[in-house]
């Protein structure tokens, strides 16, 4: 391999955001002509690495080498192309104009497509859409246009960042074919994804990142789905496990029961029961339908079928549930203080009395109670919400939902981007909450989270629900990871068999 000079070398990359260490001396070699897979749990530093290679961030320390020469992607951005799930293009321009924009040359008129560009477009099979506005093209075509645009400007490094979560199987097959073509043409290709099957199938080597460093590189026989799954959770066994024997079996009827529950696109024929005292996890990658399923329980997706919460249906059932979205941007109010954020879902009579007048004393009291009960660390409840740490903000988001006393709490990735200490506290809070005869259903992308927080789990693949997994049956997190990855694989194979008769 030419003395390791060809390709990109990363040496000792460090990056911190405030008190959070995102990269802690990451070393990685990316060779020309191969597809290198990147895997890692949320918060491991994966997206920071992507941003650094894409030139959107600079490392605090460490160096990047391109073919042996020092390299600054932020200045040399033309060499890098990032293919996101959401194409970063100009929807109002035509496909051809999208290929051109930024390289219009010296013309003063409306730029025209050169023959070299036309050839690139033909190679990617998008020449017939040349004059179509990009917004009218399918997502797959838009992604092709994005890749073609990068090829046309002679980019050398291609970063595929969760590229196929919104594509159909056929479309993602084609996308991966283009990816392999790029690699075969001598370019450097990285594939970042949560889908272990895709990593196994398309990457020659897979680097597993944990805690800001490359912890393992799997290749050859070691590269299996189960192998990656285990590496993702290794060494983190039970760090924050707060499970007690309570909650596993309360006997009695279920608090939530869902039957024949179908969505137009995301999922179909779901049946699910959850008892009081239980934390149930829905595990799935982006695009599997798991997220939509959770949102549908909060009444945020239009679905057919029957859902019952504590014996109620319809609006009254919805009022018994509370939903906390994955990003705090969708649950917190940046113009509000901690106290106001905690109380914003309450109404009359909790915080307002005659003539809707706010009970200010009562509000302060409620807010103080909530900060104590939910272990929120703030100097004062009148502090602005943005001055809290990520973990404490997440506690506020959950406390805000719990303040309106729901029976069913619906959480999306409840500890995403949260430090380990807060994570443990959040799991403890959820446990306290369900032990008062309530239920939590949460959407997880991480096996570790399932292992640490949930009693039961279901895997969602292609909009179908697997049989249940009782988390307590697994002696350690690796075993659970293997089982979940096996179930995903089987469901996919079955589904594939069904779809391609």
């Amino acid at each position, binding site marked *: 391999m030419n003395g390791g000079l060809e390709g990109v070398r990363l040496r000792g990359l460090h990056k911190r955001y405030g008190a959070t260490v995102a990269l802690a001396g990451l070393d990685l070699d990316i060779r020309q002509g191969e597809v290198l897979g990147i895997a890692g749990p949320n918060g491991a530093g994966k997206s920071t690495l992507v941003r650094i290679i894409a030139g959107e961030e600079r490392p605090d320390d460490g160096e990047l080498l391109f073919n042996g020469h020092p390299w600054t992607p932020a200045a040399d951005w033309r060499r890098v192309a990032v293919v996101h799930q959401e194409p970063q293009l100009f929807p109002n321009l035509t496909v051809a104009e999208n290929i051109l924009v930024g390289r219009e040359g010296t013309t003063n008129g409306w730029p025209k497509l050169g023959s070299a560009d036309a050839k690139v477009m033909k190679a990617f099979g998008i020449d017939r859409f040349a004059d179509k506005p990009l917004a009218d093209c399918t997502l797959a075509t838009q992604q092709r246009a994005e890749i073609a645009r990068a090829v046309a400007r002679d980019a050398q490094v291609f970063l595929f960042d969760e590229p196929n979560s919104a594509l159909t199987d056929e479309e993602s097959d084609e996308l991966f074919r283009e990816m392999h073509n790029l690699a075969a043409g001598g370019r450097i290709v990285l594939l970042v994804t949560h889908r272990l099957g895709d990593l196994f199938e398309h990457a020659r080597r897979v680097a597993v990142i944990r805690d800001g460093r490359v912890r393992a590189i799997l290749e050859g026989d070691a590269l299996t789905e189960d192998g990656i799954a285990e590496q993702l959770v290794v060494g983190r066994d039970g760090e924050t496990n707060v499970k007690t024997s309570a909650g596993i079996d309360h006997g009695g009827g279920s608090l939530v029961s869902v039957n024949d529950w179908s969505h137009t696109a995301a999922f179909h024929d779901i049946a699910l029961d959850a008892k009081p005292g239980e934390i149930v996890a829905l595990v799935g990658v982006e695009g599997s339908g798991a997220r939509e399923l959770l949102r549908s329980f909060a009444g945020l997706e239009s679905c057919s079928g029957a859902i019952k919460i504590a014996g109620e249906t319809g609006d009254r059932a919805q009022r018994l549930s509370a939903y906390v979205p994955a990003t705090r941007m969708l649950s917190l109010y940046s113009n509000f203080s901690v106290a106001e954020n905690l109380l914003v879902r309450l109404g009359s009579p909790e915080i307002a009395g005659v003539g809707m*007048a706010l009970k200010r004393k009562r509000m302060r009291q409620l807010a103080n109670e909530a900060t104590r009960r939910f272990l929120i660390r703030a100097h004062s409840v009148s502090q602005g919400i943005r001055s809290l740490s990520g973990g404490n903000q997440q506690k506020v988001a959950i406390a805000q939902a719990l303040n309106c006393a729901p029976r069913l709490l619906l959480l999306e990735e409840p500890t995403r981007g949260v430090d380990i*200490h807060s994570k443990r506290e959040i799991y403890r809070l959820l446990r306290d909450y369900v032990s008062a005869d309530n239920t939590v259903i949460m959407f997880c992308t991480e096996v570790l989270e399932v292992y640490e927080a949930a009693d039961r789990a279901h895997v969602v693949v292609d909009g179908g629900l697997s049989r249940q997994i009782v988390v307590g049956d697994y002696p350690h997190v690796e075993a659970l990871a293997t089982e979940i990855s096996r179930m995903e694989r089987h469901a996919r194979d079955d589904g594939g068999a069904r779809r391609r008769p």
Partner: protein
Amino acid sequence: MTSADSRDPAPVETSRPSLSSTGQATFDLGLRMGGLVLAIVLVALLMFLLKPKSFNIDVGISVLRAMSSVAIMSLGLTLVIVVGEIDLSFGAMYGLGANSLAVMWILLGIPIYAALPLAIGIGALVGLFNGALVTWLRIPSFIVTLGTYNLLYGVSLWITKTSTFNPVYPPPGSEIPTAQLDFFTGLTASFGAHPISLEVVWMLGLALAIGFLLHRTLFGFRLMAIGGNPVAAQLARLPVTRYKILAFVICSMLAAAAGILDFSFIQTTQPNIGLSFTFPVFAAVIIGGASLSGGKGTVIGAMSGALLLAELQQGLALLSPGPHVQQLFLGFVTIGAVALDLALTNIRKRRAA
């Protein structure tokens, strides 16, 4: 970060010595209001030093009267801006409020006691129209209210047949009973040793009412929440649609009221009145610290903004350096206030980082 198992519940964050511990919002507001009050005092002092003889208590009172209609409209606009929307139509609504009252009362002979609530009711309907289009049809409020601005002005021209009205000199064939005329002019009658119009009292009363509504009720609390993060508010099942519509309704009703009060004070109305208030009212609200992105704004700020503008207007009129100076000042003050705001925010952020 080490994974050392620290079980002690001591705060993870170290306490910062500076401002961040004492309620940043309050501090910002204090700074903002302090600056605004300082500007108001400085302008007054400057005017007094430049022309000590022309400035007396009566001039001060005339400033209060002159600001009142702008201030009343800025109260309504504050609600709309806080909830994250824009209303461009209140100026035209001011005109339609006065003109529809004039037509109903003077031309059609409807007693003032009925015509007045009807005119305010028209304001409510216009607000409902704006709010419904914005929320139900999801047309951006800028576009909806740009449309209603023209619609309302058109209606004013139409119903008045482009003529002016004065209840003291009604057109031939109409007659205004003295009692009704007295009631109407009484709405803004002047009282006291240094005559001060009741319009100022209306303004203060409405400011108190809207201030209470925005800062002390659940309605205001949720208005702030919706403006701060509309998606979160929707997900938390707050009544987003209803509250947005209500904000537009109150805004239009207040604009109608402002038009009627000015009509009562000036005693004439023309088809095109109010239109030129559109931007000064926006300026007052922005100078008062409201953010066009929603979730931020105070009644005291909007009132102070209106006061500063009226002061500049009256003062410059007395100093008479020419009409251009007033416009130049309005421009400088609006941009300057927001630029200062951003600069202070940036300084603070850099210090916090």
